[in-house]
């Protein structure tokens, strides 16, 4: 068998292994009944295999096919437990199968990245189920926060002296539902009532992050979210504060901004931006204290925005 022959066979065999399960294997994987006709490529691949004393080639191939699906469906169930609670095991399994067929695992990705595109897939396939795909986004952020790096934290005294970035473990989410509350309900195993799922909330802004090695989620003031999201984009503190200005409360903005930056630096959320991504920054921009004071002054006197619920 030449390397080219081996390459062709490996591709065909992988194609056969990843075809949807049929018959009893579907039930074993918790999948709804489907087309029981095995794909032609499965029969073709089985022809390359030898029988054992107890199993014919197709049955031997089926072991791997079943394990492929059990492994991947199990990994998604482990990674998205709250979404599985929300949808129920059967609907979740059917969704996961469709997702895996649309997004088969790429060689470059680790198993932990298997569900990275699930929130977007959910949003595209079930656009009305906003609560479901926002919950999936939250759980995907949990996964990223678990192993992402810390970055080099910027001490409070050094703010404004260099372009900033968010620590890699910090994930920002702007949501139309309240996935954090839904996640807590899922963890408690509560009933999936309509009130629990939909709720009535204004827009919710979340930071999913790691603290003392444990994952955590907090709600953010809209202006705080805007500052952090802006820093994530270009690292410019003046630009971030300017973008946040419309969202600042009419009074007390300076103290609020100071308290946010104090908390963020204490948590290590603000890190030095990598040199390759450093946008230009003029010398006149260098004093964060002056900028904070300026934006606070503007907020204290000029903003017509009402404070939003935290």
């Amino acid at each position, binding site marked *: 068998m030449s390397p080219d022959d081996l*390459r062709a066979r490996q591709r065909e065999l992988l194609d056969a292994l990843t075809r949807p399960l049929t018959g009893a294997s579907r039930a074993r994987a918790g999948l709804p009944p489907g087309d029981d006709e095995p794909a032609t490529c499965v029969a073709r691949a089985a022809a390359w*295999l030898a029988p054992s004393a107890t199993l014919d080639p197709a049955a*031997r191939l089926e*072991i791997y096919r079943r394990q*492929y699906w059990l492994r991947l469906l199990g990994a998604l169930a482990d990674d998205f437990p709250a979404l599985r609670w929300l949808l129920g095991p059967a609907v979740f399994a059917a969704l996961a199968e469709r997702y895996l067929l649309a997004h088969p*695992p790429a060689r470059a990705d680790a198993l932990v990245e298997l569900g990275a595109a699930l929130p977007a897939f959910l949003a595209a396939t079930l656009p009305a189920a906003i609560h479901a795909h926002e919950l999936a986004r939250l759980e995907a952020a949990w996964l990223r926060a678990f*192993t992402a*790096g810390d970055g080099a934290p910027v001490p409070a005294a050094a703010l404004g002296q260099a372009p900033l970035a968010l620590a890699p473990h910090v994930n920002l989410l702007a949501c139309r539902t309240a996935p954090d509350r839904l996640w807590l309900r899922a963890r408690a195993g509560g009933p999936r009532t309509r009130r629990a799922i939909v709720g009535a909330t204004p827009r919710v802004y979340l930071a999913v992050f790691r603290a003392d*090695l444990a994952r955590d989620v907090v709600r953010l003031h809209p202006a705080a979210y805007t500052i952090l999201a802006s820093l994530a984009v270009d690292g410019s503190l003046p630009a971030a504060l300017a973008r946040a200005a419309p969202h600042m409360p009419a009074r007390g903005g300076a103290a609020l901004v100071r308290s946010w930056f104090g908390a963020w630096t204490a948590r290590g959320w603000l890190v030095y931006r990598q040199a390759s991504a450093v946008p230009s920054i003029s010398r006149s921009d260098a004093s964060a204290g002056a900028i904070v004071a300026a934006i606070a002054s503007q907020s204290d006197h000029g903003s017509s925005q009402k404070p939003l619920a935290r």
Partner: protein
Amino acid sequence: MPTWSQPGAPRRCPIGLGLRAAHVEAILASPTPVVDGFEILAENYDGDGGRPRDALAQLGARYPLVPHAVSTYVGAADGVDRAQLRRLRRLADAVDAPWVTDHLCWGAAGGRTSHDLLPLPCTPAVVRLCADAIRAVQDALGRPFAIENVSSYLAWRESTMPEWEFVAAVADAADCGILLDVNNVYVAAVNHGFDPRTYLAQVPAARVVQLHLAGHTVEDGYLLDTHDQPVADPVWALYAEALARLGPIPTIIEWDGDVPPLEVALAEVARARAIADRVLAAEARDVA
């Protein structure tokens, strides 16, 4: 840096565990070492931070650590993934790994992956393909690499040699080590209908750097390598035979599914210890 064998120590078989997240807290809380070393599933620890990397930093100060990968795929006709090798190198450097292991198998093709360990056709051409890949892996890792025999449930019609000859031929051609998984030998022997003792007798002893033990599940017409229960009695018997032939090779017990409390896994370590001490003592008496 902790090592598997202590200079001047009496002849003793190092025995360790595959590290599982559920056990880390109890291991770190123990005032004395619970085992001789740990194997770490490389892909679970190659992230940039968080609890996994913190656990390695703490454990690495007290125990020898060996990265065990599952996605190098030295038998993939498309070649090895250079990005994965870079991550593996970074991890191996971080824990000062004496060697790195992965399976003699394929699992990816055409840019996609199965996340499985798929058996290869045992032919001279595939021996050459795997050996070329392993030499590249060893160069990239900057340290010895060992290949593990896989559990398998299918066999290629085009194979021209038994698996033990294939493993030996690849190791010789690549000049690499062998991680002999005793449970996998037994599972493959039952599934393919050969005598596992023949396998053990034919493995090139000088190349074996590590042994694996694990549990399997009896299915309808085959054995499935599940790593979710204690090591089976026939596998313990094979382990004793392997030690008698190979000597005190570092041994790792794997338990990946339905992970039990640490004390249950340590009971398996104690059983392996008792077998190793008995076999090595008998060997010493024979020499005397």
